[in-house]
């Protein structure tokens, strides 16, 4: 990991109310927001000690069983695959949040304790009331218009292997130190993505063990390292980065808690491009190269180029699905696709 020289840029003394969220995302690179959550009570509790942070969190346990990942100490805190890649190297289970917190507290200093990770847990559903005391008052119109999904992440020392998410993210470190290792989306091939299914938590992860990269098996990972940057975060710091950036997340202390905000600006009638990708495996990938290149030109024209270009020269009445997409048109297109897919 020492091979990564680049450090994520930092905005000091950031304030959620005035943070230019949309502009930071539009810049297309990550930024650390130093101390933006310094006034959240959980940060102060955590600085007193893990026991204080755990006691503070327990008061919000809504009683609904949470999903937790439990990994044997042998996996080195890295939630991923068994050696032959045929199965996950941890178990997913459900249980009481307070019971998991007790368990984490009881094993804080135990090097033989299992790795426990309660990931992306909706705070309103599982910790009712927490939002009022721990959510940041983002004032940027983008977050007001597109209310983010707010989730909490709790665990001991854990490593979430590098993956991308489909949403923009603000990740707020509240308890424990966290390290994000970030790669631009174009590094996908250099990160050696794993199976589409199963995945540790819904997203494809890099097969490279960042702590012990095997450059014989993964030679292009050297190029990924050259493009990577590292964000070291203390309690109260946040990291903002755009959708689709690859990120490995290491929780570095015996007890760690983070709250994150995920949002997209696209209307909800738009489908996930993940479906488009899967369908392209079905429809495009195995065609002869000259056909693929032809389709590349068509996709560039219709999809990846300027959104209006394919319709610009047509009379408005003749634009059909080339006109800007709206909820109505999306319904028509969905119906046509459903018909065509079912064969």
């Amino acid at each position: 990991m020492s091979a990564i020289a680049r450090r994520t840029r930092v905005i000091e003394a950031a304030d959620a109310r005035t943070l230019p969220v949309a502009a930071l995302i539009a810049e297309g690179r990550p930024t650390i927001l130093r101390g933006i959550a310094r006034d959240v009570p959980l940060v102060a509790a955590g600085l007193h000690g893990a026991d204080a942070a755990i006691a503070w969190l327990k008061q919000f346990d809504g009683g609904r069983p949470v999903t937790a990942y439990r990994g044997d100490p042998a996996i080195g805190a890295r939630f991923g695959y068994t050696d032959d890649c045929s199965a996950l190297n941890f178990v997913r289970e459900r249980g009481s949040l307070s019971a998991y917190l007790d368990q984490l507290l009881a094993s804080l200093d135990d090097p033989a304790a299992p790795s426990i990770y309660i990931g992306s847990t909706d705070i309103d559903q599982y910790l009712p009331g927490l939002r009022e005391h721990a959510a940041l008052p983002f004032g940027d119109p983008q977050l007001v218009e597109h209310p983010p999904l707010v989730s909490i992440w709790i665990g001991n020392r854990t490593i979430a292997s590098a993956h991308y998410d489909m949403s923009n993210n603000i990740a707020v470190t509240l308890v424990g130190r966290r390290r994000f290792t970030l790669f631009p989306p174009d590094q996908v091939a250099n990160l050696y993505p794993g199976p589409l299914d199963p995945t540790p938590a819904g997203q494809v992860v890099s097969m490279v063990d960042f702590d012990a990269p095997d450059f014989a098996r993964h030679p292009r990972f050297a190029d990924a390292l050259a493009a990577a940057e590292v964000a070291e975060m203390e309690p109260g710091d946040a990291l903002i980065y755009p959708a689709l950036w690859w990120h490995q997340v290491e929780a570095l202390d015996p007890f760690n808690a983070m709250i994150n905000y995920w949002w997209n600006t696209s209307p909800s009638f738009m489908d996930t491009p993940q479906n488009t990708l899967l369908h392209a495996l079905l429809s495009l990938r195995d065609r002869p190269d000259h056909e693929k290149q032809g389709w590349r030109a068509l996709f560039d024209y219709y999809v990846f180029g300027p959104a209006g270009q394919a319709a610009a020269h047509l009379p408005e009445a003749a634009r059909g699905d080339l006109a800007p997409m709206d909820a109505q048109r999306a319904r028509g297109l969905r119906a046509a696709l459903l018909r065509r897919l079912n064969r």
Partner: protein
Amino acid sequence: MTPVQINNIDHADLRVSPRAGAAFGDAANQALVFPAEFEELQREFAIIFRRRDEGLQAYVLLGLDRDENLYLVGDYWTSRYVPASHQRGPFSIGMVRSSGDDIGEPMLHFDIDDARVGDDTGLPLFLEHGGNTPYLNHVTAVLRLLYEGMETAPPAYAALDEAGLLTPVTLTVDVSEERRYTVPDVLVVDIERLAAVTGEALEQLHKTGVLRLAILAAASLGNIQQLIARKQLLLDPAG
């Protein structure tokens, strides 16, 4: 019974016969039914309720003698609608867990021991490249009705009961002057009490859709005449 989860790889060419018959449990004198099918049912059958250990259940009357289904001839139903609990044929819903942390998703299964499964004269479940056939979509819709019905029926029937709209009766059915059947221990919607509901109680029943169920079930009782006519035809085909 051996339920097997359906998928479009292992069962790409599998055909299933949609036929009915006594061998498949269709020779029954009543059928369990669910609220979502009351509208279709009341055009054909009499809908009655019974108080079971697990709560109220709704049934349609199909026959008067034991194992008699007057709407079944050989391997097909002669009614315009078949109760979903019989339409489902060899198919069922099973919960399939994708991982240890969830309760599972309802997935379509079939009973591989059922003679209709693997019948080459039957209907295919999948299209040439793995899409769903209209038959599979139909079966899926029937099973969804049953699955949702098991969730929605108990509170709806309880609301009917709490509003005092169900009255216990013994149905007396005269097929001929010398032939009388009684159907004991049933509850039917009491039309007079239904007519007497007013104000907030009425609005509540309407809002929750329970009023509609009550009206459909009440109207359905006239179909007992159809049942009698079918029985008479059976006893005296010359009429």
